[in-house]
Structure formats: C-alpha cells, structure tokens
C-alpha cells in the first residue's frame, strides 16, 4: 500500500493509491471494485472477476437472479462478510474513497461508520425510537443530549419519519408498522452520517405502499449519500437507480446507466433477464 492510505483514513480528499494497475478513478468515484474474486469456503469462488466503479451521489442497483452474488458483493463493501470465518476475497481489491478496505491497516469499525447498511428484514432494536436512532452515536461515545437530539431529529426527518413519530419518540421501535420500522432502520443508519449507504433488498418484506415511500426516500437521499441497493424487483431498479449492474452466476455481466440497461443493453443475457425471458 502507498503511504497515503496506510493510516486507513477514508476522507474524500485523499487521492487513490498508485499501486493499482487499473486507471485511477475519477473524482466522482467512491467505490472501485477491481477484479475481485470472493469465496465463502476456500476454493469455491462465488464472485469472479468483478470490476466496477460506483459514483458519488448516485443510486446504483444490483440486479440478477437469486444466488448470483449481488448481496455477497454488497456485504463485501462494508466487510459484513468478516462475520463468516472462512469467507475472504481471494483476488483483487475493493477501494472505497481510494483506500483498499481489505488492507490490514484499515479499521473495520471506522469503515462501517462510513459505509452504513440497511438490511432486508427490518431489524430495529427493541428499544425506543429515539434510542434506535441514537444508537450509532452513543456507541461512538457521544453523550451530549443536544447533539443526540439534533441528530435524531435530523435523521428522522431525512428518513421521512419525523412527522409520524415526533410525539412518541420514547415508545418502542417495534410498535411501528413494517414500513415505518424499515425507515427507522434507515434513519438509524444515516444518523452516523455515512458517506455510503448499502441497502440489501430493503423493500422485500414490505407492502407496495411502504415500498413506494421507501423508494421516494431513496431518490431523496442520494443528494447526501451514495447508495448501493440490491433488489429483486426490476421495476424498483428502474424507478430508483441511476446505474444498474446485472449479475449472473457470480459474474458481472453488464453495468451501465439504468435507462440503457433496461432499454438497450449491450449484452444478450442482460436483455433476456430484464425483458423477463429468463430469471
């Protein structure tokens, strides 16, 4: 690794390391996946030769049939796969804000503060709404009531939940409806002000109305955050994303502007999938 990246700092103004063989990313690129192979069990690569760039302030959708590796790649981006003992990147590197996030100098705790995640099954803690949103800040040691109050209000407003819950911040997060719980989880994620928000099928457990609300929320949030979303719902990808990546059997088949992917894809496989002939 180059000297600039050794400290594991993830600030935006840092230039990418010069060790890479591929061309340096543009200023707008926040995530670079560079020829990555990934295996849960040694010898069985479930991702092969993945290379992509994800741009700042855009919503990038990962689509593809089940088991194609899109969620796996998403979980590589904030190293949630570290929870699985044998899982590892076997080739290539993933650079976020110019830093190889699998470099030994990178503190995974710091990484995850910058790369937040919203999960498929909404999972608020059995705590009050306020404490759910404040959780990320509290574990960073922030105790000041005014800072927390301000962050909770700002995050809930961003997540479009403030008006609905402002009078009952002390009641349990589990008392909310499914869609509200998922927005609470989004508020909890953005409360720590990550640069990037990863969403792993955030609407798959929700009804259509809640889904619409979350989709609107995603398009609003992209001004502040770079969003990567895994979805099974192709209409959702067209509605919310700027760029779409199509995965099949652990390979990235095609990645392009969403409009192009759905109207005029370069690859036959992509066309088959998005037109519903396959998958």
């Amino acid at each position: 690794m180059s000297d600039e990246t050794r400290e594991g700092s993830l600030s935006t103004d840092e230039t990418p390391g010069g060790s890479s063989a591929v061309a340096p990313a543009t200023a707008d690129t926040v995530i670079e996946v560079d020829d990555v192979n990934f295996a849960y069990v040694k010898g069985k690569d479930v991702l092969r030769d993945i290379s992509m760039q994800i741009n700042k302030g855009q919503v990038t959708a990962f689509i593809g049939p089940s088991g194609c590796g899109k969620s796996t790649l998403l979980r590589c981006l904030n190293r949630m796969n570290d929870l699985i003992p044998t899982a590892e990147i076997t080739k290539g590197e993933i650079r976020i804000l110019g830093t190889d996030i699998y470099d030994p100098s990178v503190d995974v705790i710091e990484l995850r503060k910058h790369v937040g995640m919203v999960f498929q099954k909404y999972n608020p803690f059995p705590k009050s709404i306020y404490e759910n949103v404040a959780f990320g800040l509290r574990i960073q040691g922030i105790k000041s009531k005014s800072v927390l109050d301000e962050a909770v209000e700002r995050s809930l407003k961003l997540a479009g939940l403030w008006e609905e819950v402002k009078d009952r911040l002390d009641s349990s997060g589990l008392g909310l409806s499914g869609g509200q719980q998922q927005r609470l989880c989004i508020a909890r994620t953005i409360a720590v002000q990550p640069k990037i928000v990863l969403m792993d099928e955030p609407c798959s457990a929700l009804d259509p109305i809640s889904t619409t609300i979350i989709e609107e929320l995603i398009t609003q949030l992209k001004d502040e955050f770079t969003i990567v979303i895994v979805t099974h719902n192709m209409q959702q990808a067209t509605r919310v994303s700027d760029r779409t990546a199509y995965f099949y059997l652990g390979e990235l088949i095609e990645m392009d502007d969403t409009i192009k992917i759905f109207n005029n894809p370069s690859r036959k496989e992509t066309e088959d999938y998005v037109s519903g002939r396959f998958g």
Partner: protein
Amino acid sequence: MHDQATDPPLQKSENPFQKKITPQKRQDAVVSTVLRMATYFILICAAFIFLDIIRKGAPVVFQTEFPFVNTKFFTDSPETLMTFETEDGTFYKMDFSDYSQWKRDNPEGRIVEEHSHAYSGGGIFGPLVGTALLTIICIIVALFVGLTTAVYLNEYSSKGRFMDMVRLAIMNLAGVPSIVFGLFGLGLFCFVAPVITGEPQERSILNIPLFGGNFLAFQGWGTSMIAGGFTLAVMILPVIIAACEESLKAIPMGFREASLALGATKWQSISKSVLPYAFPGMLTASILGITRVAGETAPIMFTAALAHKDKLPWQDTDSIGGFFSQSVQAMPYHIYTVAARIPQSEYTKPMQFGSVFVFMVLVMCFAALSIFMRINYRKRVKW
C-alpha cells in the same frame, strides 16, 4: 348433472362405516393403554411422595391457633430434643435449652425414663440460612462463569473441531455424579485454592510472596461455605452454559449485524444489542438449575456442611473473610442427618418430615417462579 342411473343404488340398511375390529386397531388399543399406564405410573409416584410428605410434614409447620404457622420451627436452629418422665408419671418433651432451664427450676424433680434425640428439637433456621448463603454464592459464581463461557462459545469462538470438543466436555460435565463433584471440590477448593495470607499454613502447597509480607498461599479454603458454593457452581455450570447459549441463539442475527454495521465493536454490539435481550431468558433458565443445586447433598457434605453448629454464620465471625470461610448447616445435609444418622423414633419424625416439607415447598416455589417468569418473558418478547 350427474347421471344417477349408472351409480349403484345405496342400500339404506347397510352402514358403510360399521365398526370393525382389525389387528391394527387392537394393536393401537394396546399401545395407547401401555403409554397411558406409564404416564399414570409417574403421576402415582409423584402423588404418593407429595401427599405423604404433606400429610406428615404440614402438621409440623402449620397449627390451628394464631398465627397458624409454627414460627419457632423457622426461627430456631436444630437442637437436641429431650423426652423424659418424672416420678409422678408426667411426660415431658422439650428442647435441650428448655430442659436445662427446667432442671434448674425443678431441682427436686426426679427424672425417670430420660431420652435424648439428636437434632430433633428446635427448628431449621440454621440450615435454611446456610442453604440460602450457599445458593447465593453458587448463583453468583455459576452465572458469571457460565455467562462468560456461553458468550465466548456463542459469539467469539470460531467453529471447528476443537470448539466441538470443548462443548462436548462441558456437556459431559453434566453426567458426572454429584459425589465426584463433592470430592473434586474437597480436593480443589478445600485443599488447594489460593488465599492471600500473612502466615501460610504448613499444608500450603505453594507460597508466592506478595507485597507487604503477604503470601498467595495455595492452602485451600478449608471446609467453608465458599468452597461449597464454588463446588455447587462447578456442578451446575453445564446447565447454566447450555441455558445461556440457548438464550443467546434466540437473539436474532439482525441485532448483531445492525449494530456492527453502525460501527460498533464486537463487544459493544454484544453488550448493547445482544445481552440485554438475552439476559431475562438466561436468568429464568438458570433459576431452574439453581433449584436443583440447592437440594444437592453430596457436593457440600465434604466441602461446606456441618450437621450441627451453635452459632449462625454472622454470630461466629468479625470479618468478611471469616464469614465466608466458616462451615454452615444446610437443608439437604440436615435432612440427610436427621433421616439417616440418628436413631429413629416417633420423636424424630416431626423434624424429619417438617424439614422435608419446608424444603420441598421452597424448591417448588422457586421452580414455579422460574416457569412463571419464562411464560411471562415469552409473552413480552417479540421480534
């Protein structure tokens, strides 16, 4: 429309569902009878035990006059019971302390037919206190060690052959006979466990000098309530570890992931988003294990228990160290003593059955509490 002409006409007189006895049905009847009988057998045994103890024990504890409970039985410690007749044929039955008083008051009374019945007078206050103290020490030690082990096994340890063996070893610990635990406790806690002291005893195996002329002396804690509490704790550990692990497994993975994804360290996510929700379940399951341990005799008979002790634990010492390093009376050992180590007579029966009755009711209350807590907890928890 259905064409009725092709169907054979139903004969009204014939019942198509007529009862028939087939070999399969006979087999079914036999099996269900055997299963039912086996279940009733358990019920009969349980009913016999409970009813017999209640019939003979309840009259010792309860009385017909106010306050309806024999308070003396709960507030006095065991004493020798004296029975005697005086010359005029009056029969007396009294505790030894009262007997001495009586003799002072009636110096001229000639006593004939005097009998003493060891441990059969007084009450069970001493054993109750001792069992409470042993159980408290056991709870603290077992919960601490069990909880930390379960957290390590479930949250930190990597999966693999070695960890499987560790788990197997822990589960095997549950199969060790309690008398073996008693001897183990005697060997480890009574004879070898380290103490900090200025003057190590001669039996000390190893003395490590510390600051200020003190030594860390591996001389054991002697026969003491702390040795007994630790022995009981080791014995109940497999149950506690299994219960704690079960409670940890019941916490959704999503809580851990959500917490980690917010930048929490592993310990932060365990302590803030796993343990608070697992703890009620752990406590509930542990109480059930602890009621079992409260009734164990073998582990404490070498390590902690005394058949008779004049003073209560707090009367016998002036320091905290001294408090924990003294022997105590304990309910199960007291029951063993009055049931098996003294000559039996009709005068020893009230103490025997009274002790058993009180102890059984106490343990059943704790078990009921644990079950009640579990039901309550299951109702409250939802995610």
